[in-house]
């Protein structure tokens, strides 16, 4: 603004000076004329006035034209150029306004087009890069999510930066920025990392393996750890897990079985050997003694046979096999088979599920179908899957020539497929502990292959966590109060209760929480549970939150719900709208829950009062409106809906607090405390 007046004022002053100077010169000229020639003064004055007014009028008129056609257009152009420098304005510069400025307007216009072109090129480049990144990101996410092995990436201090679905299946409910020690015993990992470090020092970069029990001790995981290095910096570690529980169990069972077998065979074998020796070398044994020896021999033989029978049964019960098995739909095998053989096949009963190596079984059946079709007399081949108790029988039925056992044997002796090396169909059958045979009946002939039936596999849940990695987790360390708000993990939560008086015996009926980590709301890591209050919920409260007695019958009580919520809050700062109210309920029941909620607490009501003291409204609705957060009406007054809205409000509040000089957790807590004091003083 200053500059605009500056230029126009300067022009005005210039013309004013010109006018005043002219008037002074005219006055001086007239005075000189009068002093030389004399004569009446009136004539001089009249002439002087006319000339002075004329001059001033001329100066004013030309000054006006200058202002209109030079000063203003210059200012206009300058402002246009300024705007274009700062923002992307598409409209071209209006040359009409600057038509008296000569080449200036076309030059400005040229600058505008050059700038626009440069900007467009830049935007295209950015869009191209963004596209590429988005593609890579999608690929990376899909790859990690569906990887069969559990993948976890941790920071150097073992907090989770990334985890995939398989890791969640192995380790439980994982959460970003959570410490790994909550899910795994860390000692084996630390030991592996030490070995890794020693290896790195020697220039080895191979991953280190370790065996680790899960925190509940129920499963054993085989893990591999490798470092993430960026130059000299260690950014963290990549851990890859697979479940070794069953392998280990099977090994242990087999070892145990073998040891028992050896022991139980040795004893009767020794006894039989000894008895036989006696009978052979001592021919003179009296009949009575001989009978005793015979009985002993029979007893030991019985023991030996019994042992063999039992071992056989127990061996069959070791369910894990070395052949990789999965749940496969018979249909999938049939479809693959049809694509693999030239013979036309009909298929029935494909909806049954089998536990088998689908590819190997498909190859085995393909060998059989190919074998069958060598004889042109065999017709109407029908594939079937039939459920028989715990088994699904794959059958191939046909009319015409029957199949000899020796043919079947020949077909199955061939190597199965190039990808299986020397493995034959016979090996596949052994791996599946099954047999294949041909039968003849009223239907014609059929080949039967019994396989273990399996339940319908649980569909992979579609609710994959939307946020399963964050490679920019802030480093931790130092006093929590000293840390910046934007770096902390928060648990924003809300409770619904039977009433408004925690001290008057009201109880919690619902707790919901959501995490904010590194400035991001983790919508996939939600805590949400109903709580059985152990008393009836007053109708008035049900009207507010919609939770009735029926809904909480099978819900956990506050002890169990409180325990899991405490675990969920681990390492976080608690945030709630009117936190003192919710905290009063949790604090009251701490003894029962067995954990204390001694986390730092922030209250959005108090923070809002500290930030916007001039406005009186600090309800959740008012805050939501101020920050443009919409709460779907059906979610308002549900613990999760309110917690979600509070989280969104709080996230925006962090920015406002930064601007207001509230940077650290300590700052925010003291701002809240100041408000508490003021409110108490006002008896609010």
């Amino acid at each position, binding site marked *: 603004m200053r500059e605009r007046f500056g230029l126009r004022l300067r022009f005005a002053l210039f013309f004013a000076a010109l006018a005043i100077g002219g008037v002074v010169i005219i006055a001086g000229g007239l005075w000189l004329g009068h002093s030389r020639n004399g004569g009446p003064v009136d004539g001089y004055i009249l002439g002087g006035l006319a000339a002075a007014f004329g001059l001033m009028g001329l100066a004013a008129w030309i000054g006006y034209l200058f202002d209109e056609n030079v000063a203003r257009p210059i200012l206009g152009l300058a402002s246009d150029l300024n705007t274009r420098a700062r923002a992307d304005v598409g409209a071209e510069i209006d040359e009409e306004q600057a038509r008296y400025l000569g080449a200036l307007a076309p030059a400005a216009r040229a600058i505008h087009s050059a700038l626009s072109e440069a900007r467009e090129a830049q935007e295209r480049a950015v869009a191209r890069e963004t596209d590429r990144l988005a593609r890579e990101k999608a690929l990376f996410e899909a790859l990690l999510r569906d990887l069969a092995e559990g993948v976890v990436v941790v920071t150097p201090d073992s907090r989770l930066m990334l985890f995939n679905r398989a890791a969640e299946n192995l380790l439980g409910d994982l959460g970003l920025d959570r410490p790994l020690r909550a899910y795994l015993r860390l000692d084996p990992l630390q030991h592996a990392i030490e070995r890794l470090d020693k290896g790195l020092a020697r220039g080895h970069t191979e991953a280190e393996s370790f065996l680790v029990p899960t925190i509940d001790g129920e499963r054993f995981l085989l893990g591999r750890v490798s470092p993430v290095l960026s130059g000299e910096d260690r950014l963290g570690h990549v851990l890859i897990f697979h479940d070794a529980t069953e392998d280990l169990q099977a090994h242990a069972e087999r070892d145990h079985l073998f040891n028992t077998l050896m022991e139980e065979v040795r004893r009767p074998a020794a006894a039989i050997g000894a008895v036989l020796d006696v009978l052979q070398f001592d021919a003179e044994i009296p009949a009575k003694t001989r009978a005793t020896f015979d009985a002993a021999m029979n007893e030991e*033989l*019985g023991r*030996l*046979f019994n042992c*063999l*029978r039992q071992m*056989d049964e127990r061996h*069959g019960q070791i369910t894990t096999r070395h052949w990789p098995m999965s749940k496969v739909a018979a249909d999938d095998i049939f479809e693959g088979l049809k694509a693999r053989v030239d013979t036309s096949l009909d298929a029935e009963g494909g909806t049954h599920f089998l536990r088998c190596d689908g590819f190997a079984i498909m190859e085995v059946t393909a060998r059989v179908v190919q074998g069958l079709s060598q004889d042109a007399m065999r017709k109407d081949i029908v594939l079937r899957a039939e459920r028989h108790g715990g088994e699904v029988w794959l059958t191939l039925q046909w009319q015409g020539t*029957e199949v*000899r*056992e*020796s043919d079947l*044997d020949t077909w199955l002796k061939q190597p199965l497929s190039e990808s299986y090396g020397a493995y034959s169909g016979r090996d596949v059958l052994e791996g599946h*502990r*099954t*047999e*294949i*045979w*041909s*039968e*003849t009946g009223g239907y014609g002939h059929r080949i*039967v292959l*019994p396989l273990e039936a399996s339940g319908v596999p649980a569909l992979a849940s579609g609710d994959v966590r939307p946020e399963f990695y964050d490679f920019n987790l802030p480093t931790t360390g130092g006093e929590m109060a000293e840390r910046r708000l934007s770096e902390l993990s928060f648990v924003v939560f809300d409770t619904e209760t039977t009433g408004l008086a925690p001290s008057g015996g009201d109880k919690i009926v619902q707790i919901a929480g959501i995490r904010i980590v590194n400035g991001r709301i983790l919508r996939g890591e939600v805590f949400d549970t109903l709580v059985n209050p152990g008393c009836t919920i007053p109708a008035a409260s049900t009207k507010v939150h919609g939770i009735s007695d029926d809904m909480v019958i099978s819900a956990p009580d506050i002890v169990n719900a409180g325990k899991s919520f405490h675990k969920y809050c681990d390492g976080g700062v608690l945030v709630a709208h009117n936190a003192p109210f919710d905290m009063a309920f949790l604090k009251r029941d701490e003894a029962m829950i067995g954990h204390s909620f001694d986390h730092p607490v922030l209250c959005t009501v108090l923070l809002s009062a500290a930030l916007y003291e001039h406005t009186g409204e600090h309800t959740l609705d008012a805050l939501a409106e101020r920050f443009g957060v919409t709460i779907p009406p059906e979610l308002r007054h549900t613990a999760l809906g309110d917690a979600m809205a509070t989280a969104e409000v709080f996230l925006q509040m962090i920015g406002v607090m930064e601007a207001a000089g509230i940077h650290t957790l300590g700052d925010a807590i003291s701002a809240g405390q100041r408000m508490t004091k003021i409110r108490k003083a006002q008896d609010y």
Partner: protein
Amino acid sequence: MAAGDAGGSDLRCCLHRLSRREAGPMEEKKILLVEDEDNIALALEHLIARQGYALRRIADGTRAMEAIVEDHPDLVVLDVMLPGSSGYEICQSIRRDATLSDIKVLMMTARGGEVERRKGMALGADDFMTKPFATSDLTDRINDLLAEASDA
């Protein structure tokens, strides 16, 4: 199956033995033992002969079929793992030949699995035994099967 009417079979078997002794050697039942292991064959030959049956032993799968057609025994005691044709193969061949339909087949194997037993039965065996077994168990089952055969 055999286990269900074990009591009845025992009784029949005793009657059968009595009748056999009375009838004399003319109606002696014929058993063909197809077994490649010499030692077990030695013991089985001895045991079966003592029961009063005529016994012939074949040591490999290839010649078994010829012997069966030639002798037309009442019972074939058949090992699964044989050089040449397998026991399954031989059993299947017996069952597909209508002229041999009256022959009883008792299969035995050292590979003790339920699925092997099922395969043997599916291929038409009348009974299936897993090695090792008590010899008395074997002779009981042989008697049962031959009793069934003469009833039929």
